[in-house]
């Protein structure tokens, strides 16, 4: 929904779940731990997918001359990879990221419920 312009995310003001008071101190710690775990997983996924992305384009171009002699369905392999293959791998990377992050987000939401 439209967010009023001045209502910026106010990171300095404590999050509601963190400011649960003395009784909620333990809960707050658990939430912080859940967040940290979620971020660690996100970061790992990002790194893995970025390495795959780098290997795709760099490998395709760097070894293009060596791959040119192989052929798939009539295409020289290097031409196929450059014209279609690598772009389709990019699409798969983005799809995998969106799907996996949704799983991670849901896992985080469950952890919050458990903590509450």
């Amino acid at each position, binding site marked *: 929904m439209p967010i009023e312009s001045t209502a910026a995310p106010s*990171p300095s003001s404590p999050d509601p779940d963190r400011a649960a008071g003395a009784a909620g101190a333990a809960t707050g710690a658990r939430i912080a731990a859940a967040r940290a775990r979620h971020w660690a997983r996100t*970061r790992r996924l990002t790194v893995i997918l970025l390495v795959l992305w780098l290997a795709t384009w760099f490998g395709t171009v760097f070894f293009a001359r060596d791959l040119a002699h192989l052929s798939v369905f009539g295409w020289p392999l290097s031409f*196929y990879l450059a014209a279609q293959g690598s772009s389709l791998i990019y699409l798969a990377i*983005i799809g995998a990221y*969106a799907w996996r992050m949704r799983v991670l987000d849901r896992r985080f939401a469950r952890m919050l419920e458990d903590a509450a």
Partner: protein
Amino acid sequence: MNKPGMPAPSTTADLKQDNRRYFRRLSRYYLWFTACLALFLVALGILEREGMPRQWIGHLYMFGTIVLYATIGVVARTSNVSEYYVAGRRVPALFNGMATAADWISAASFISLAGTLYLHGFDALAYVMGWTGGYCLVALLIAPYLRKFAQYTIPDFLAARYNGNAGGNGSANGGGRGTGRGTAVRAMAVGATIVVSFTYVVAQIYAVGLIASRFTGVDFSVGIFLGLASILVCSFLGGMRAITWTQVAQYIIILVAFLIPTMWLSAKFAGNPVPQVAYGSVLPKLAQREAQLALDPREQEVRAAFRARADGYAARIDGLPHSWEAGKVEAQRRLDVARSRNASLGEIRTAERDLLSYPRTADEAARLWTEERAANLARAQPPEPHADPFPGKTREESDIRRNNFLALVFCLMFGTAALPHILMRAYTTPSVHETRVSVFWALFFILLIYLTMPALAVLAKYDIYTSLVGTHFSSLPTWVSYWANVDKANPLISIVDVNGDGIVQLAEIAIDGDVLTLATPEIGGLPYVISGLVAAGGLAAALSTADGLLLAISNALSHDIYFKIVDPGASTQKRVTISKLLLLAVAFIAAYVASQKPADILSLVGAAFSLAGSTLFPALVAGVFWKRANHQGAIAGMIGGFLVCLYYMLHTNPMLGGSADAAWFHIAPISAGVFGVPAGLAVLVAVSLLTPPPSNASRGLVEHIRAPEQ
């Protein structure tokens, strides 16, 4: 379109259901739109068979589509801040992806990319790889975090992150000191946004003028202002909301316009209407034909003729300045002879023109003849095999081409991930998850076009190599003469019988990359309706990109400069009004610049990617992934990246007064970002580590954007 007075849903479940209903309604609208488009095409096809003149069809397309976009703009008009800047943050992922794709597919990629692939073969695939690969960086590193941040522009994010005080509540944290620093980062980000987007928007408006003048016969500048009118009605009235819904319609037109002729060609030459699959079988045949043409004696004859011409220029360059004087006397003498012996008017005219276009000074002659020599030498080369990666005489030469390919891919990817008008779209979806999905859809819709481009290039090349080469000059296909006459000053295609045997040789064909997409329907023998459709597609591609760019510029000026720096107390109504006025001003400046036909700016568009990547990418990514990055680091990184990139371009681009010999590792100036991005990143890291860590507020902001949505 969408009703402004949508009731605010109270719970998440309501919100989800509401979004679904909204999605279904939009899908219904666009299905109707597609059906109407199909009907329109069929009706025009029938009219053409009944004998409607081509000119009228061109006019109908041009005005029909412009009226359509204007209508969407009027229906979706708004003056609500959130609607104007970020389309109310409720564009479903699928449609946001389509709009991003339309934003992305510029006139250059729609009209010129297939031609570039035709002319440069494997080398040009760098554009396909780079322009699609950038979306991985957008999806993984930037877009979801921008959405979580949930503000309005890219400078917003940089200013909040490198300031320690987010948004408008400056007094609460950070205080005056922090605000000052945030302002510096913001102003620099705005500057980068404007530099990058403005060169790009000028090129789009230029393309609008070109297409309009070629297809409807109106004057170039009239074409520009017609296009401008439709851009303005759309973005002026409704901002992001109007351009989003216009762009979805434009994407559908782009897709239909590109796929119909290519599928036709594919069915004709490969017996399979799916070009992406079919051209695999054409490639080996093309390679065979290339090998045959490389050895053909008549081809060699023509190439020898070009080499002789190049040698002639070389001799004249060596003989400067005497050769220049002798040439001038000779040209004058020929004119006198023609006049004295009462030659035909045509001959006299030719002699006059020769004398008039003769270089005025010896220096000009040196420059002109060097260019001519290079052009003739290029035409003396045998055709390069289309699918061979990096052919070269020596291993070293081949390595240089590979390194340049890598560098270009690198720059295009990092540039894509830093283009403000694309990143701005991350703000418009209902949730972070939808933003991730929308990047997926964006790349999907882009690939529908981009995977077809190499196919079109191969199919057209095969057709030209087999059926055009070898025909008699008296029986040239009609599309050749049509496109040769469209632009007399710079013919898009020219075929001259160099060796005088009356038969077309490959080396005698000079083809401009821009003609390929536009001429595809005629090459395939389709009716003029489809040619008009392709032109409408090119127009849609140019207009949609121009819309997004203009909005990015005017938002940066109105939101970031006016509201955040000049007058933070401005009412929302005033902000939107200012934004609209600025949009108008920027649009007119861009149109004026485009109407001057600035060749230098057009050649700089490729450079915009390098500049964007070097300046904005390091600050954006470090802002999310490295808490220690601080404002000093960001400022130094942005300046450092920009300067390194600019220095390299000025230093190595002959058009900007540099020299190609000064290149580092033989990297072409267009790929300056390959030095700029790492330099920017290195400076950012070094300066951040040497200065105090950022405030707690900055760290809090990073925690906030990293945290998952609840």
